[in-house]
């Protein structure tokens, strides 16, 4: 694809669950509108439900691939759909949410389109230069793709979603599933039980518990504080290894990376593996018994004390101040 043929369109693969567009989906549409003209690609069932949200966030065209078979295979159907959409619009860039599956879609797409890839961007300029925070936030780098269509995965919470209502023009994409798509079949799905809290990666506030919480029961005080703040619950690796809280909530080098407005670490010493997953949070508050805990090197405010005293008091005070 030569530069001269490139349009101002920015393809956005819509992150959704059964047609409910996720928050990061609306964030990336907003980001796309700052780079060029957003064009949405929707894969799977539920496009009618998603249409309203997608046009509300500024996509003037939507390419829909909705064959039933698409939902029973991993990753590849979205790659196939994006390849087709890219042929149609010659995009300036392709933006995808930086989820586990989103990054894999981007990886395979890069091989298919012979294009460069950047993952985990926290910003993208109109010149399609991406900003990344690497090595647990030790460095900020600006990277551009030098070959093909820039394929960029964007972290949740990178852009504030802004409505920009338009009337979206819906186009059905005819996607011939590549033979590769059918090679692996999803035979059963148990969706993560919704705990009624925001998704960990998308939450504006994350309340985390570590070894200091002491037991699975101890997590009740963490959950109560999270609920008073409308926050997600996170956990350190010591906690998930001990089985006190499920693995999907693990924050850190080998877990999820979060970058919320506020990260509240309770009973977490702040080992480097944990810090790698949370130290780009805007505001960090910690409660720990040990005044020497490394987490205190990162905090904007810290309390040296017993979390079972401090946290319930904070929960009560938050409720009081919010009334």
């Amino acid at each position, binding site marked *: 694809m030569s530069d001269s043929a490139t349009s101002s369109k920015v393809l956005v693969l819509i992150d959704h669950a059964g047609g409910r567009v996720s928050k990061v989906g609306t964030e990336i549409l907003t980001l796309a509108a700052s780079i060029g003209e957003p064009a949405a690609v929707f894969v799977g069932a539920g496009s009618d439900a998603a249409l309203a949200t997608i046009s509300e966030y500024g996509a003037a065209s939507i390419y829909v691939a909705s064959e039933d078979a698409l939902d029973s295979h991993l990753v590849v159907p979205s790659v196939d759909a994006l390849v087709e959409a890219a042929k149609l619009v010659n995009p300036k860039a392709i933006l995808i949410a930086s989820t586990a599956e989103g990054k894999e879609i981007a*990886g395979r797409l890069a091989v298919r389109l012979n294009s460069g890839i950047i993952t985990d961007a926290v910003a993208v300029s109109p010149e399609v230069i991406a900003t990344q925070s690497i090595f647990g936030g030790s460095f900020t780098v600006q990277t551009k793709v030098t070959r093909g269509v820039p394929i960029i995965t964007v972290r949740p919470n990178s852009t504030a979603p802004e409505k920009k209502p338009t009337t979206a023009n819906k186009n059905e994409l005819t996607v011939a599933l590549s033979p*590769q798509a059918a090679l692996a079949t999803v035979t059963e799905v148990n969706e993560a039980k919704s705990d009624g809290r925001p998704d960990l990666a998308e939450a504006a506030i994350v309340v985390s518990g570590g070894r200091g919480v002491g037991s699975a029961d101890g997590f009740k005080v963490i959950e109560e504080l999270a609920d008073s703040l409308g926050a997600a619950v996170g956990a350190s690796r010591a906690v998930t290894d001990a089985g006190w809280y499920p693995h999907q909530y693990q924050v850190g080098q080998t877990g999820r990376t979060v970058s919320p407005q506020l990260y509240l670490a309770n009973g977490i010493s702040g080992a480097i593996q944990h810090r790698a997953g949370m130290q780009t949070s805007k505001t960090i508050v910690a409660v720990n018994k040990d005044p020497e805990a490394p987490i205190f090197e990162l905090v904007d405010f810290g309390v040296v004390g017993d979390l079972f*005293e401090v946290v319930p008091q904070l929960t009560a005070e938050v409720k009081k101040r919010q009334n």
Partner: protein
Amino acid sequence: MRIAVCVKQVPDTWSEKVLRDSDKTLDRDAAEGVLNELDEYAVEEAIRLVETHTGEAVVISMGPERAAESIRKALSMGADSGVHICDPALHGSDALATSLVLAKALEGRNFDLILFGSESTDARMSVVPAMVAERLGLPQLTFANSVSVQGDEITTTRITSDGVATVRAKLPAVVSVVEKINEPRYPSFKGIMAAKKKTIETLSLNDLGIAASDVGLAASWSLVETVTPRPAKTKGALHTDAGDGGLKIAEFLTTQKII
């Protein structure tokens, strides 16, 4: 079964990372190199599958000379042999080039299963297994927290933030495993001694039929323009709880307009 385990040597998490001024790549000599922690789970799973189904586990790694130490570690855990792709032209290779090199090294070796860790602890992109599957035209079963093989069929449970899915495919297949899948063994003294006698085959780009111009920093399809170290953070106030810790945090959150 013939199992390939692709591993990477990464800088020790505890070490300070330095980016070279000259080409803005990670200075891998400045930090101690260790076997990527998440790859140990893939090595362990390969050894267990061989214990159950017989066969062999071959460790494959691309990296500078000292990456051989990480291959040797996997061999001391119990893998059978190693393949080390080592070539000065590989310096600065991105994920696309890495996947090309691994795919070429894997091609034609008749592996039933190609295992990876779910990500490297340095680059953290998590894209190489998917890229290798794409290049080899193989099914991709990534983020597995259980793997079972029956005949020529593999079943994994895939764990992501969306939930748990059961995924099935015919072998050969590409699988990446998450850290909760098993407990990697420590190399025993006997294992360490045995590993010294195991073969590590060294391959150059020439051996793989890859042109030096297709890999390395010059062929990288993305370019780092600027690098900014994080400004030193001013440590915030510490308050020692005197029965008012929760109130103090609430006050702080109010001044930050969070509540």
